[in-house]
């Protein structure tokens, strides 16, 4: 979308503000605002009876009511208060654990490197959802356990990324100069190598955000994540599948997942376009 980028430059927007980035940022930003403010303006309580059961969408209930007479619109809005914090926690934990181990593997090398990277290989040998399902089934259903499972699924990706970065940066001349001038290894790592390793990690984390939200909802849909009456999107869609002919029960949470994941994918796509000229 370089014509868009080109046009936006005429309006003196910064070069990263392409249409996908602006659109993605707007969607994600809107959901974040909803997440923080919804208790102050939501029309109903997300877990309490709000009207008759199975009311179709109308003026009173914009997205109808579910099997227990709860307002689907309200529950959909509240859903973001589960999905976003969980996704953020999973990404942060995976990045911290993965980058620490990856940096150690790349910087120390030898047996430590071997041990860490073989662990990474084995973990990445599983299809993500199967591993997440097996871990959650072992720990017991629940959003917290599903989050732990997703960290276990995601950390190796960052370990691999960070190790490759450290290995590449380690060969640069300024690092050699630092070592030659007698800097301690920890100083070399923290001051001279790590600061140059972050940009691909940040882009990857942005793109993974949407995927984590999808996987978390999938686990809840299967019945391994959130437990009722939590207004969680995957759980609500599983409810909607039970009452298939009342289509509106699943419509709200489905659209919610679609928009927020789309938002993160727009952001990630835009960032990748900026960094990878091949995809232009």
């Amino acid at each position: 979308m370089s014509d868009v980028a080109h046009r936006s430059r005429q309006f003196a927007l910064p070069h990263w503000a392409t249409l996908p980035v602006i659109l993605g940022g707007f969607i994600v930003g809107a959901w974040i605002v909803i997440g923080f403010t919804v208790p102050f303006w939501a029309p109903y309580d997300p877990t309490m009876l709000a009207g008759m059961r199975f009311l179709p969408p109308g003026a009173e209930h914009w997205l109808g009511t579910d099997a227990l007479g709860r307002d689907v619109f309200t529950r959909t809005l509240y859903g973001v208060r589960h999905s976003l914090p969980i996704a953020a926690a999973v990404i942060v934990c995976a990045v911290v654990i993965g980058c620490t181990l990856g940096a150690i593997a790349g910087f120390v090398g030898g047996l430590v490197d071997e041990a860490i990277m073989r662990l990474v290989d084995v973990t990445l040998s599983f299809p993500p959802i199967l591993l997440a399902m097996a871990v959650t089934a072992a720990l017991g259903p629940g959003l917290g356990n599903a989050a732990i499972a997703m960290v276990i699924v995601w950390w190796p990706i960052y370990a691999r990324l960070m190790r490759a970065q450290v290995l590449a940066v380690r060969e640069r001349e300024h690092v050699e100069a630092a070592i030659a001038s007698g800097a301690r290894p920890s100083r070399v790592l923290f001051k001279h190598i790590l600061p140059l390793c972050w940009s691909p990690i940040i882009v990857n984390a942005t793109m993974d955000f949407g995927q984590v939200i999808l996987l978390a909802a999938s686990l809840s849909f299967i019945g391994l994540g959130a437990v009722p009456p939590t207004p969680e999107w995957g759980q609500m869609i599983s409810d909607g599948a039970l009452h298939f002919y009342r289509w509106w029960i699943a419509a709200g949470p489905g659209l919610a997942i679609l928009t927020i994941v789309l938002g993160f994918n727009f952001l990630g796509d835009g960032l990748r376009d900026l960094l990878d000229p091949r995809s232009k």
Partner: protein
Amino acid sequence: MLAYIARRLIAMPLLLLGVITVAFLLSHFTSADPLTSIIGERQMNNPAVVEAARARWGLDRSLPEQYLVYLKNLLTGDFGTSFRTRQPVAQDLLVRLPATLELVIAAMIVGTVFGVALGVIAARFQNRTPDNLARLFALFGSSVPVFWSGLVVLFIFSVQLGWLPGPGRIGSRMSAPELVTGFYTIDTLVAGDWAGFRSALAQLVLPASVLGWTVTGIVSRMVRASMLDVLGQEYILAARAKGAGQLRILFHHALRNAMLPTLTILGFSFAYLITGAILTETIFSWPGIGSYAVSAARGLDHPAIIGVTIVGGAAFLITNLLTDIAYALVDPRVKIGARATA
């Protein structure tokens, strides 16, 4: 190159052993007692029944002992017995494998056809409206949760319009075809059953489209990038100078060469298809490995969970290996020595 392939092949059994070990350990460090799902909650207070069940399922032995027995049995193709179905897990999986394969292959065809078409359109109209629309369509595919889009298409095309049948592998009034390959679309043809074939095919359309849509984006992005690469080369200019038509250049000259790198992405999209198959099968009551995995996980059926996880891991490992080798063979610029150490 040979050294790289050899090294990857040697690593395979080790990785597989790692997968088996992790899967085994996972299902044994569980918070819930598997006995509950074997004998039911009521009998848990009956010490005699608990003891007997423990001995019957080998749960009274130490963990390393159980692990060694499990490994030994695996070598003979024995995955243990499912707590729920009381059938050998290997048999359960074998019966369900063709259903999953049929769905995944059909989805792969849908994803490839649409992905290539969108990729070609996007490259032809680079950075213009059709390009942006194609990218948007593909992006939607990787953003929509399949367990919801499945419900939506079922509601629209099956309930409202009545164009396509509801969930299941074959029409409810038909009987399953005699087992030859396990693919209903092929088996009905073998049996010469046209009505059955039409029914099996119609049943396949919705789940395969929903699942295929999820990988359309991956394929079209790859096709677009390699088409743009190829279209910039001199022999395309030569073909234009010779007066070749627009379509002939796109399909005859460019797409052929752009397809090579695209083939490798198909292996990569397999990961997405496995994820999607688990959820799609659940929505469409498709009797494959995915829906088996879901009921196993819900019912704390440990032998079944380990079995599915190992089979999924093995399939994943093999596809990744084939993809990497194909990639290296297709693109000599890839320095595979460097990839192997990564």
